[in-house]
């Protein structure tokens, strides 16, 4: 990363501080920001592991610390990127807002309960600090192009299908960067790490927890896109929820008159396959995404009617770069911040599915 502080037109580079310096920061955000050195400079890296913080900060020529407060007090940090474990997200988002930063990027999910989401909304409203949730597919140029193509499909679609087949994260992390001290733990697939014992799937509480993890850890990538086609979800019903070994799920949902299929398998395959489909009476949309981590360009969108298929993409950048470009626009005042109510409804949608899956599994046993 450069150590310059201004862009060619004299505008100051936007200082970024990272809370959490694990594989997501190392393999996703630093490589993305390295493509945007005309906009951003990494100013500060915080991690509870001082060695990780120091190593990752050194890659970017940034200051490092083990304290959130120290990072938030750093005046060079204008945008806070929250890449810590899920359970810390809400607290850190609120703290970053109260610190008066220019924007907050929080990895998904940005909260783990409706109460946390409401609190974040209130603080964002009170402080005026815009929040961007790192749902990268919603910033993917392929998806953004699809939104321009799909006409009335959001109103007419009757079936929505999100399908994710992924190799272990490490495969793509290693293509994207060289990860320093890869941690076992919540960011790893629960069943594929050798340090983890085989879960007892006869215990329905274990199954419910795994399904919940699948929703908030994997399905959540595309749930904001799914919700674009679901007019309301106060009637959401989980019709089926099942584990796919070693880590994955099959869900069938009904909400707002739509039928929603969510399928995922994360295993030892080398071949990723990540698609979203919306099917209506007279038109269909299929969006094929590139895998996480790597800078492999955008999704490809195919919009089909009886007469023709229109293809958009691939474009040169992915949703990670898209979300950082959006943040730059927000900070510069050239783009609108995402609507907080939309972000909160996206989260509530995910939580409703997770809660519904848990109830479905446990009630089936009762």
């Amino acid at each position, binding site marked *: 990363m450069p150590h310059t502080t201004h862009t060619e037109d004299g505008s100051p580079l936007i200082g970024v501080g990272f809370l959490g310096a694990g594989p997501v920061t190392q393999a996703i955000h630093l490589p993305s920001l390295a493509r945007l050195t005309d906009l951003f400079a990494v100013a500060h890296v915080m991690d509870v592991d001082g060695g990780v913080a120091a190593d990752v900060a050194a890659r970017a020529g940034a200051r490092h610390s083990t304290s959130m407060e120290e990072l938030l007090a750093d005046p060079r940090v204008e945008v806070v990127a929250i890449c810590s474990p899920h359970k810390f997200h809400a607290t850190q988002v609120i703290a970053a807002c109260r610190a008066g930063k220019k924007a907050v990027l929080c990895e998904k999910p940005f909260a783990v309960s409706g109460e946390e989401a409401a609190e974040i909304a209130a603080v964002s409203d009170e402080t005026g600090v815009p929040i961007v949730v790192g749902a990268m597919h919603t910033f993917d140029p392929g998806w953004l192009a699809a939104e321009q193509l799909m006409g009335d499909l959001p109103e007419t679609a009757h079936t929505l299908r999100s399908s994710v087949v992924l190799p272990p994260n490490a495969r793509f992390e290693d293509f994207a960067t060289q990860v320093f001290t890869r941690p076992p733990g919540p960011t790893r697939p629960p069943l594929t790490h050798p340090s983890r014992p085989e879960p007892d799937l006869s215990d329905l509480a274990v199954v419910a927890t795994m399904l919940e993890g699948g929703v908030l850890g994997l399905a959540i990538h595309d749930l904001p896109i799914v919700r674009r086609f679901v007019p309301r979800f106060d009637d959401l019903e989980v019709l089926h929820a099942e584990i*796919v070994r*070693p880590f994955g799920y099959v869900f*069938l949902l009904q909400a707002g008159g739509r039928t929603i299929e969510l*399928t995922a398998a994360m295993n030892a395959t*080398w071949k990723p396959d990540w698609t979203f489909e919306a099917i*209506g009476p007279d038109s*269909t949309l299929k969006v094929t995404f590139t895998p996480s981590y790597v800078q492999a360009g955008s999704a490809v969108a195919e919009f*089909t009617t009886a007469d023709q*298929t229109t293809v958009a993409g691939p474009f040169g950048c992915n949703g990670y770069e898209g979300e950082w470009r959006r943040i730059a626009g927000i900070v510069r005042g050239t783009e609108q911040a995402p609507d907080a109510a939309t972000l909160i409804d996206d989260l509530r949608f995910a939580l409703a599915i997770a809660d519904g899956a848990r109830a479905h599994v446990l009630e089936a046993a009762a």
Partner: protein
Amino acid sequence: MSAFSVDTTHTAGLAEIVASLPLSLSPVGDGPAQLAAVAGSPGWAQRAMEAADGGALAVVVGSPQTDDGVAALASETAPRVVLAWDFAANPGVLAAADAAAPLRESAVLAEATLAVPSGTDLDAALLDVLVAVDRVAGEPASLRSLHRGANSWHLAGGTRSGAPLALSLVVTDAASASLRLRILTDDGGLTAVVPSPDTAAPAEIRVVARDGERLLPTLWETSRRASWRRAVAIAAGDTISGDIAELHRLTPLAAAALG
């Protein structure tokens, strides 16, 4: 081998089939046809029986629908009946079945997603999908209907190896009908995309393994032509059909799903 005679005048599209198999099939002249074409609308089992009793060497049932008379088909007739499924009879499905056989025991997920135009008989479509699943993923251990609406039908079950099985039949006029079958294993799997029975465009079958991905040789033949080739082989005494036995085996699953 002389060509077997068929009556092309009462079955739409059969003249085209005959034209594509001119050494095996010929339009009937004087006398009864040697191979019988039977429409798959309800009552087809009885009509197939009558055709066989009338001297047909083989009977091809086009796009079979549910029919309570299947169980009554005589044991001597059943091996001469070819069920010309729109999708399950595609030669690509048969190729996929061979390629999928080693994957079945290690499957972690099996799926079938069918897209069909409005007006399609979904009960009949489910039978077609079930047969295709049976051939590729193996006989399901269970199946139940989760949701059936005007535009879609979703079912869930399990494979014999204990993997989840997900079936969906979705109605749309946006694109040609197609069936997608997928078996995932822990380190790869098989995907078969089977086109509409109206086209000779090939099914696309891809097998993913640790050492890469393989596209099976493409077979540019409609499911209908493939079914009639089988009928010719049966009439020639080279093989027998297990289609009726297969349908009979799957009927309890279908009945459970149909409710």
